[in-house]
Structure formats: structure tokens, C-alpha cells
């Protein structure tokens, strides 16, 4: 039992429990808070995999920015508790169950019936360095420069779109 394993178990437990709490809480704000906790645990798991960049971005972007805006909206709406949408629509419930079952079966298949892919079997020294910031930066600015620029245009278009739909008044 080394430190890494202990950390993994603790973080994984936090992640799983908080994920369950997200969907069982009836109060939307509480759900959001547990989602933040879940993001944290995930960030910790990423750190264990030596993926520092993803870990930090997970915290800065998801927990620090996106969830704040979520909370922002929830607080402004000030919903006391969730509307019960699912109770009287059996079909939707069935559909949700079906999707969950599918995902479960697929994950089970992944875990029990597939072999680790080549990326995992490869040189551990190399693959453990992939997630560092230096490597991600290098990849982004060489091999993935075009998707990177594309993401820039995507965000630009999204910003313009949000502005035009949300701007209060046009003269």
C-alpha cells in the first residue's frame, strides 16, 4: 500500500460519492456544490497521472469559472427546489435508464474484456511525461497548431454570437 494508491482510493471515493450526491440532491445549488467537489477530486486524479496541465485547467476552468457562472444563474433564479419533471413522464425515465444501462455495459466491457491499448503498454517514462505543461505546449504549437487556431476561431465566433443574442439593446 503506497502513498499513490491511498491517494487514489481517497480521491476516487470522493469523486464517486460526490457524483452520486449531485444527482440525489434536490436543491440545485447543493448539486452544483457537489459537482465542484467532484471536479476537485478529478483534478487530484489527474495529478496522480502526472497530467498537471489538465488538473490545473480542470480547477481553473471548470471549478473556477464555469461552475461560478452556473451558481450565478442558480442564485439569480433562486429556485428553492427542483421541479419534478420525471415523475409523470414514464417514457423519459425509461430512456434515461436505457442510456445509463448502455454506458454501464460499455464500461464493464471495457474493464473486463479489453486489453490495455498500445499507449499504456508503451514506454512508461515517455507516457508519464506527456501531460506536463512543456509537452502540451510543444504539441499545441507544432502538431496541433491548426486545431488550436480553429479553437481560437470557435471561441471568437461563440463570443460574437453570445454578444449578439444577449446584448441589451441595439440602436
Amino acid at each position, binding site marked *: 500500500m503506497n502513498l499513490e494508491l491511498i491517494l487514489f482510493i481517497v480521491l476516487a471515493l470522493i469523486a464517486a460519492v460526490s457524483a452520486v450526491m449531485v444527482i440525489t440532491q434536490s436543491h440545485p445549488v447543493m448539486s452544483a456544490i457537489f459537482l465542484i467537489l467532484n471536479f476537485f477530486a478529478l483534478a487530484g486524479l489527474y495529478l496522480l497521472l502526472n497530467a498537471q496541465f489538465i488538473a490545473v485547467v480542470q480547477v481553473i476552468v471548470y471549478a473556477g469559472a464555469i461552475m461560478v457562472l452556473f451558481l450565478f444563474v442558480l442564485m439569480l433564479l433562486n429556485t428553492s427546489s427542483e421541479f419534478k419533471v420525471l415523475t409523470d413522464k414514464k417514457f423519459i425515465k425509461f430512456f434515461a435508464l436505457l442510456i445509463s444501462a448502455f454506458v454501464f455495459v*460499455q464500461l464493464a466491457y471495457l474493464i473486463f474484456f479489453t486489453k490495455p491499448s498500445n499507449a499504456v503498454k508503451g514506454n512508461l517514462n515517455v507516457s508519464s511525461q506527456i501531460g506536463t505543461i512543456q509537452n502540451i505546449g510543444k504539441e499545441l504549437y507544432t502538431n496541433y497548431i*491548426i486545431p488550436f487556431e480553429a479553437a481560437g476561431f470557435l471561441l*471568437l465566433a461563440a463570443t460574437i454570437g453570445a454578444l*449578439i443574442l444577449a446584448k441589451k439593446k441595439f440602436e
Partner: protein
Amino acid sequence: MYQNSTEIFQMMPFIIIGAGILLSIAVEMSIKKSELILPWFSILIFAVSAVISIAGIQQESVLFGGMIAAGGKAAIFNFIFNVGAALVVLNSVDYIKKYGTYYGEYYILVQSSVLGMMMMSGAKDIIMIFMGLELMSICFYVLAGINRKKFSANEASMKYFLLGAFATGFVIYGIALIYGTSATTKIDDIISGFNRLITNPLFVAGFIFLLIGFSFKIAAFPFHMWVPDVYQGSATTVTGLMSTTGKTAAFSVFIIILAAIFSTHSINKFTPYFAAIASLSMLYGSIVAISQDNVKRMLAYSSIAHAGYMAIGLAAGNISSESGIIFYLAAYTFMNIGAFGIVSIIEGENDTQLGISSYAGLGNRNPVLAAFMALFMFALAGIPPLAGFFGKYYVFIGAIEGGLTWLAVIGVISSVISVYFYLRVVVYMYFREPQEEIKIYSDNLSLSAVVVSGLLVIIFGLFPDTLLNLITSALIR
């Protein structure tokens, strides 16, 4: 990373559109009268980009470390996107004036959506497909609701966004599974290992998710729920853009990711899927369109049916059906943009004059417009010798070659059904007396866009072989 001059030249369409977007933003910010500049600037960059694309058709090259391809079939697609978008912009100038809501962002978003489409059609890496898809879709979500004062536009935007996001979820989940099973995002690697990967059920599941996600975007039957409301609620010119070039872009992705099947070294496991959505879309679109009195809504259902015809080609999965699809897409783009152009001319303020009764007597009052509308309706119905006929013809030939004669038969049946509602418009135009006073705004720009698309439809119809040979040669290379 050294790029030689040919590659730079092939990259030019992307560079031009990308720089054009940034320049347009600068113009919109700094110049008061930007509405006089931006449309023409957009048309200029679209035209230049189209010309450069088609000039590079003879040479296909993969750029930037295997991320994106230019030339070859991507050149044809880029040509369709750019010319289509240029026509839509030409169409929009007066349409926007009619509604009195000018936003310079409109043109910027049209340019951005074209950039997204070009990324999709040239993608050599699944990441590029996804980036392009999102860029295009986000622009469309906003464009659908750009007429913010209209309730129906807001509804259209919202519906499109929710279902589009749902589709994106499918796409990204599929991509995750594909990456997980193949350990690569490079499309070439996936294609070369296709026969090995196809035995993995997770890969097949991921692939089907990807196909479902894009089936939303082409508006095929079980995933069509958003189409009628969105097409009806959006501004007519925007509908013209997303029903044609958007569909073309989604089909270009199908063609890219199914390349392993098209090059016939792999069995087509997905034939049942495509055959199902093709036959259902054709029949559903054609039958439901019969009962539509709103021309925009009728064209929306016809768009579903056309997605079905094109999906026949995907089900058949051979090289002739593939070139048939591309031909069909080119033809469909221009006849639909023309049809929506005329709808946008006739449309009055606040969603009036969209019903079929507004077209009554058009043959007497405005013979030019009526003649072009008749042309587009005949073309959409697939009456020879117009472009629409040859599109269907090549796709059906491909289906018969691929041993799917029954699908071709369903296609023919549904074409016959569709003749009813297309000709209904023509009948109204020439053989009915107008019941109400219809005020048609004179606008020469929209008319010129309609004329250009009409000419393209006729040219494609008169010389189908030339275009088809061009497409086939680009595909085989």
C-alpha cells in the same frame, strides 16, 4: 515546419477566410457604415477562396502534420461552400433591410460558419472534424436567432441549439470510443486499420454514435425533429445557408470517415443503418411535405427527403455513389439557395407572405421570378434535364451497383410523390388568381443571386458528365 509554396497556395482559402473574419470584425468596430462594406467584402473573400480552391483541385496535399487536406474532393466542397455562402450573402443584403435589423455580426458569423465547413471537409484528423462541426454549428445557432425581435426566431435558435448540443454529445462520445479503441485520432490510420478495428464492438458503437450525431446535422429521419421549426423560424436567407452548405459539410464528413468503405477494401457494416434512415427520410419528408401550406416549411420537409436520397449513396458505399452524392450536394445547394432566395424576395415583413397562396398569380405579375421558381421546383423534383435529376440518377445508379435496388425503387417512388408538392407551387403561380394584394419588394441583388443559382442549376443539368468526371477524378486520386 517548412511549407512549400504549393502548400501555402492550397492553404490560401483557409487563410483568406480566417483573415477575412478578423478584418470584418475590425471593419464592423471602426466604420459606421459597415453595412455598405461588409456584404461586398464577404462576397469578395468567398469568391477568391472559391476560385483558389477550384484551381487546386488537381493536386491533393495534406498540410500541417496531417491535420488538414486541401485540393481533391475538399476543393470541390470548398467551392460549394464558398459559392453558396456568397450567394446567400448577396441574397441577405436586401432581406436584412426589409426586416430593418442590420447586425454586422451576421456577415462575420456567415464567414465563420464557412470556415468551419471548410475545416470539416478537409479534415484529416477527428479533432479537426469536431472543431469544424462546432464552429459551423455555433454560428448556425446564433444565425437562426439573429432576428431577435421575432419570437419564432428565438424559438428556432433555442431548439436548434438544444438538439444540436445533443447531437454534439453523440459525436464527442463516438469520437471518444473511436480514439479509445484505435489509439489514434488520425483518420488515415483509422481507415488503414479499419478491417481490424471493425471487429471490436466498442469501435462499432463509437462509429455508430458518430454517424448518429451527423445524422442530426444532415436532417435525416429519426433525427429530424428540429428541422421544420428551425427552418421556418430562422431568417429565410439563414435557412438557405444551413439547409444547403450545412448539409453538404455534414455529408463531407460522412464521406471522409467512411472512406474505408468507399474504397471497397472493407465490407459495409453500416448499410442497414444508412438504408433505414435513407428510406424513412425519403418517405417521411415527401409525404409530410404534401400537407404543408407554408413554403418554407414545405422546403424544410423536402430537405429531409433530400437527405434521404443522398443517404442512399452512403448505404450503397461505392465510388460511383460517392461521386453521385457530391454531385447531388452541388446541385441541391444551388437549387435550394435559389428557391430560398425567391422565398426571401416574396416574403413580406413579419413572416407574412410565406404561404403558398401568396404565390398565386406570380406568373403574371412577375414572370422572371415565377420562371426561376418553376425552374427550382422542377429541379428539386428531379425533372430532366435539370441538375436535380442527375443528382438522383447518379445516386440511384450507385445504389443499383451496390446491390440495393430496392432502395433505389423507394427513392423513385418518393420522387414521384414529391412531384406533387413541388408542382403545386408551379400550379399556384401560373393557374391561380391571387386572392390578396401581394406587395413584392423589388430587389435586384437578391434577384441576381437567384439568377446565378438558376444558371448553375441549368449548367449542371446540361453538362452533368463534365462535373461528374471532375468529381470522380478528384475522388480516385
